Structures are given as C-alpha cells and as structure tokens.
C-alpha cells in the first residue's frame, strides 16, 4: 500500500516547470503548502490532495515507524524503517529529511526543516537563479 503523499520532490527541468506551475496558482491554493529549494531541486510539502503534479515528480510520505523521514510513496525499503531511520540519523544527523534513491545507486537526503510558506517573489527569484 503506498504511503499517503505528504510532499513532492522535483529536480532540474521538472523543478523549474513546477515553479512556473505554482506561480500560476491563486494565493488560496498556495496557502496550505510549504516549500524549500536547493540549487536545482524543490520540495513542496502539504496534504496529498493539495500537492501539485508535474511529470517526473517524486512523491514522498511518512512511515509511522520513522516520522522524521519523508520516503518515496511507491517504494518500500528492504530493511525495517525504524532501523533505517536510526542509521541515517547516525550518518547525517537529525532530520527532518526527504530521502530518495540517487541515480548513482546510493541515497540522497534533502533537509526539509527550512521549508516555509510559498512566497511568489522568492519563487520568482529562484526561477531566475535556476535559469542562469
């Protein structure tokens, strides 16, 4: 059973596409969401029915055994989630983290503590930086 989605993570071109998509939303639709950005990625957090969709998006959810982690909704771990969370904390520190498989075969842990309300001017500034 997939985890209920609580966040969406997008990278590269999909991240820029999502940013444009969100800039077209009314403020009321943006209000329930929080977001944090990296150089070329974006994580948007919110209830599953509020989350945006773009192609190539990765949806993340909480497993009750590891509430400080956001994990891909459509993949299970092959180790107990609580042990995984413990090992990750020892490796990268306390979260919260969004964790997903890396293209190279390892894992990527994205800090999501900085997530905050979506401000249009900040989103526009990020789009400009991402383009350059």
């Amino acid at each position, binding site marked *: 059973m997939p985890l209920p989605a609580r966040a969406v993570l997008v990278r590269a071109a999909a991240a820029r596409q999502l940013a444009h998509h969100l800039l077209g939303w009314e403020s009321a639709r943006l209000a329930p969401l929080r977001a944090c950005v990296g150089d070329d990625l974006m994580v948007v957090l919110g209830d599953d029915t509020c989350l945006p969709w773009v192609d190539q998006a990765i949806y993340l959810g909480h497993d009750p055994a590891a509430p400080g982690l956001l994990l891909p909704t*459509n993949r299970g771990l092959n180790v107990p989630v609580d042990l995984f969370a413990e090992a990750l904390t020892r490796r990268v520190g306390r979260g919260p983290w969004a964790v997903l498989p890396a293209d190279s075969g390892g894992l990527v842990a994205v800090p999501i503590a900085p997530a905050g309300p979506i401000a249009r001017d900040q989103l526009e500034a990020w789009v400009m930086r991402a383009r350059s």
Partner: protein
Amino acid sequence: MLPPDLDPARALRAAIRQASHGLVDREVLIDVIVLAAVAGEHVLVVGPPGTAKSEAARRVARALGGSYFEYLLGRFTEPSEIFGAVDLAKLRQGLVETDTTGMLPEAEIAFLDEVFQGSTAILNTLLGILNERVFLRGHTRVRCPLRLCLGATNALPTDPSLAAFADRFLMRVFVEPISDPLLEELLTAGWRLSADEPDSAPFASMTALDDLARRSRAVELKGIVPLLSEAVRRLRAGGLHLSDRRVVRSQRLIAAAAALDGRTQATGADLWPLIFVVPTADEQAAARELLSSVLAAGDNGVLQAAAEEATQGPVARARRLTAAADQLLADGAILVDAAWRLRVEALLREIDAGFAGNDRPADLGDRRDKLVETMGRVA
C-alpha cells in the same frame, strides 16, 4: 434498461454503477451488498447515523428490480411490524396465520436498521428467515424469496446473547462519515440528487442475480483450498480467530467473486472477500497486514472498489486508476476546462504516488502517457 440477453455479470456491473451514481464513497458497501446477494449471504454495516447505509440498500434493490422491505427496529417494535399482522379472516376460521403481504417474509432485499434492537421474538424469527429462508409463525410457514438482508447498527453488540444472531451476517462493512477531501463532492452530489428524477428502470434483475448465484455454486474451489487454509492459519498466528462457520462460508463469497469475474474456477485473485468476513474494523485492518502478500493479486472486474479496499493491493488499484483515466480521457474529448485539468492532475498524482515508473502495469502506463500528452497540448 439494458438488453435482456446481456451477460448477467455485465448486467450486475451496470446495476452497481447505477446504484453508486451520486453516492459518495459508498462504492465498497454497494459492491459488498451485491457480492453477498450473489453468494446468498447477509451483510452487517456498522456506522453512525446518516452515512447512507439505507440509501445504499435501497439503490441496490432498485437497480436489481427486487422487492424491498426496510424498517427501523426499536426495543418496542412488535413482530407484526416486521412480519405482518394476524390474518383476521383466517383467525375467524380458528387458524392463527400471519398476513405477510408487503412485509419482510415477501421481500427479496431487506434492510433492518438498528437490527440488534429487536426483541427476542423478532430476532428468533429472523434467524429462521436468514438461515433457511423460511418464515415460521403459528400456522404460517412461508418460503421466503430473500436474497439478502442488510443489517445496520451504530456499533457491534457487546451482549453475548446476540452473538449467534450477529454471526448470521457473514460480511461486515464499517462506514464512517465522509472524509474532509470529499466534502465538496458530497455537497454537490447531494444537491444534484435532490434535483434529479430517480432512475426507476432497473439495470439488472433478480433473474440475473439468480443466474449468477447458480454459476457461483458451480465454481470449482479445489485450487484455492490450500490458499484459503494458509490465509486462515496466518490470521490465527496473528491472533485473529474466525469461527469454523465463517471460514467454511467464506468459500461462498470466494466462489461468488469468481463467478462475477466471469470464471468457473476460483483463483488467488478471489480470496479478498475473506477480509470482510473478519468481525471488527480493527481486526480487518490487522487482517489486511497479515494477508498482504496472499491478497496482493486480488482483483475483480465487477467489484473493483471492494477488491481494492480489501487487498489494498497494486492489481486492484491499477485497475481502478486505469478506469478513472479512461473516463477522464473520454470527458476530455468533449470538454477541457480548469475543472478537468484539476481532475487529471489529481489522478496523475495518485498514479505517480502509487506506482514507480517501471512498476506501472502497461495499461495504466499507456493511459498515463495519454493524459500527460493531453495536458501538454492544452497547457
């Protein structure tokens, strides 16, 4: 009205769609009612007042064209209110017989609200009707055409003296008030329903139901006996004990699921009704966990909602999402507007959240690609 020579399973599928139209989040209950009717079993629905329990029963009766009896039981309900009054003409002749005209003994589908509130006299008589389809009272002995009794209650009874009666309802469905995300849909559907004329022409018939019931009784179960035994063992190992009676009769539900899916042999895909045989909501949730690998292949082309609810497995989920995508693609061929885009985004989100790219079944992947392409064209 569908062609009279339509395959009974397809007729029932159309009847289910008709019954579900306008009811929000009650597809599982309607599927379970139909499955129980084909299997010749009864359903207990547990949930607070105002959660469309009786409406679901009425709609199934209407969609099947069956005679329907409905009553709200109370502590002071007289047996005559359920079974009929004494036939005065016969009484003058010295015979105590019951006039059952229009009452439960003549109903093909019955709904009894607050079913455990009935007196001992009522429940004892009901036992005979539910078990043997025979109404016995005084000199009256009537063969009942009852296909299904849907009992409703706010909560499961705790009185041990009611256990035997409760056990006659093989299937259990637990309903809750509509969740927050579906409130807008509930309000819109409810308002639209009050304005629309009810569709009085049934999409199926008792004949179709009886035909499927016959096919169900002829389904070959040999292949699933080991799987069912293993499932029951897993439940027992997890602390969930079903009565021998419930275990044996669950085979009727499995056979009915296979018959509705057009098969003469039951397979592992038909085991999912076992979840609804588990008596309490907490135990049903535990059973899904214990049986997740056994039920992963669970699926049913007619009872899609119930199969997915029981298995929470990828096969049934993919089937529902594919059907939803087909509907959206058909709607999009007519009109693409902001509301359609929102629906497509919601479905694409559910597809991508539920299936990694390489895990998507081919049909679902194909529909997803078409929806993405359509969204791109109209962006």
